[in-house]
């Protein structure tokens, strides 16, 4: 150490030529790393930018091939149009009910069931776990029609129940995955706390609610965020189980807006419909991609806000909880 101090004093430099080479190569590596990371960030952020910018463009800007990132005219009216066409407030409430209900169901159900799988041995455990994996792998469409029939028998069609109730039991959209995650996570929690609680006389149910759940808060957060995003954006399940237009969740109304625009486009070019080209163009000047993008932004904003609030805890939760082993 002393030698280095003397050397620094003598030459006035803190690094030498041999170190210079190392510094340069490590600098290069760092540069490449940062370039890679920022490049991928651009990729990830691009759709958002695209959506926001397109949603502000007016129709002339969309048709204009020279306009790409900076629109020549701003048209915030798109948002108002999208808002009205999508009947935002009504469907917003529907979406909230479905999302919250199923998220709570998934959190409670998956932790409960995952704890059973993680901490206990019982007959048929392997069979049941196989069912969990099966429910993750089988695509929804395979079981679609019989599931629909089942819910018709329960008279649950046209309510929100088919999406909310199965979640409490470990099913529903990606329900099996949450059980699997919960199992993995709880296998990694040290057993000492539960044993201590048991020694102190806690019942086995009590141990779960008082000791394990508070420890598993990161897991609950992870399940919650994943479930919320999936259910908020979900179109498949909702479109099948709900036929009453008044109960649709938000993504479906965006879907129907897209459908309307497409139909108008078909009518514009077909000879038999009564829609003239000019009338259709008039329609398109108001309802076009920009409106769709505005609708998408409106659809995503709530979930982005929720995510922004939770993201700190969420990401730390994923890291600290270790969805590992």
């Amino acid at each position, binding site marked *: 150490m002393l030698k280095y101090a003397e050397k620094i004093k003598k030459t006035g430099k803190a690094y030498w030529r041999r170190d210079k080479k190392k510094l340069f190569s490590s600098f290069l590596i760092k540069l490449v790393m940062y370039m890679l990371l920022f490049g991928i960030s651009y990729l990830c952020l691009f*759709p958002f930018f695209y959506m926001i910018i397109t949603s502000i463009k007016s129709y002339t800007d969309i048709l204009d091939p020279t306009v790409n990132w900076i629109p020549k005219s701003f048209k915030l009216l798109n948002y108002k149009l999208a808002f009205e066409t999508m009947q935002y407030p009504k469907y917003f409430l529907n979406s909230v009910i479905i999302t919250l209900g199923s998220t709570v169901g998934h959190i409670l159900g998956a932790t409960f069931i995952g704890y059973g799988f993680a901490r206990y041995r019982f007959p048929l455990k392997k069979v049941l776990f196989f069912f969990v994996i099966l429910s993750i792998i089988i695509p929804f469409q395979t079981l679609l029609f019989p599931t629909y029939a*089942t819910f018709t028998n329960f008279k649950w069609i046209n309510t929100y129940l088919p999406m909310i109730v199965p979640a409490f039991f470990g099913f529903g959209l990606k329900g099996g995955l949450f059980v699997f995650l919960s199992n993995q996570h709880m296998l990694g929690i040290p057993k000492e706390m539960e044993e201590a609680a048991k020694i102190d006389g806690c019942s086995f149910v009590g141990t779960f609610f008082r000791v394990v759940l508070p420890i598993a808060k990161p897991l609950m957060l992870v399940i919650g965020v994943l479930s919320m995003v999936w259910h908020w*954006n979900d179109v*498949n399940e909702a479109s099948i189980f709900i036929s009453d237009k008044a109960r649709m969740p938000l993504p479906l109304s965006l879907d129907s807006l897209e459908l309307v625009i497409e139909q108008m486009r078909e009518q514009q070019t077909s000879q038999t419909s009564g829609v003239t080209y000019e009338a259709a163009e008039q329609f398109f000047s108001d309802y076009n991609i920009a409106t769709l993008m505005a609708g998408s932004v409106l659809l995503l904003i709530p979930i982005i806000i929720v995510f922004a609030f939770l993201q700190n805890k969420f990401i730390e939760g*994923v890291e600290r909880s270790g969805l*590992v082993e």
Partner: protein
Amino acid sequence: MKQGKIKLNMRQKHSLQGLFFVTPYIIGIALFFVFPLVVSIQMSFGEVEKLSGFVIKFVGLKNFQELFLEDTTFLPMVYSTVADVIVKIPLIVVFSLLLAILISRKIKCKGFFRVVFFLPFIFGQGVVMRLLVDLGITENVFSLQTNTVIPPSFIAYMGPSVANAVNGFLNIIVTVFWSSSVQILILLSAVQSISPSLYESASVDGATEWEKLWKITIPMCIPSIIVVVIFTITDSFTNATNPILEFLNESGIQSLRFGFAGAASWVYCILILAVVGLSYFIFSKIYKNYK
């Protein structure tokens, strides 16, 4: 001890407690899973006679015959989807591992990157994604028309086949990164849970960075890698923008050919199972080797 009371030894008590926690799942299976499973298999072997009464006429392998021999769209779609997914899965896993390792080092703006990389997940499901894909956004990101990254004159000079290849390549990169958010997070938590003392002792023993990567980081992450692989497989195959799913939807709900759709979806399902089983098999072998 009263007469007639059941005496349970500790192991039985333990089992019963476990079963208690799993009971909701068993109820769930009974209510929501068993019946659809059984009926769906029945349907793929039969024809639905009446919709309300579930009268299914057993016709043996006719649906499968129709599926494989008569329908011209199914098999090519299966091939293209499977090829697509099989190419993407290693890419997604490798890239998410790479990104997870990169982010877990000492770099600035770690939090920023973590959030940004998770963003595609938010819009990647469902409607918005479909809209964006329909608009050809995957080509627009690096599009040759919008001059964002590569000057088009350069590509045009190289000729159309190169342009197509570059476009396709960039397309794949884009979709790979957009599907890998959850995977990145899972692998990030795995990488960060490796205790630094392992790395330090390796340094003391004179390991280079490369060796550290292969001998510490990756082996310790293999359980998570297995989870990520399985998740990626199921996610890709059940993705909303998957053409096969649209095919199933259309033939099942709209054309009401339930037997046919059932057979198709079960073939698809067995395919997925095969892929999952294969990858699980491969990874278990690797895991056992490392142990």
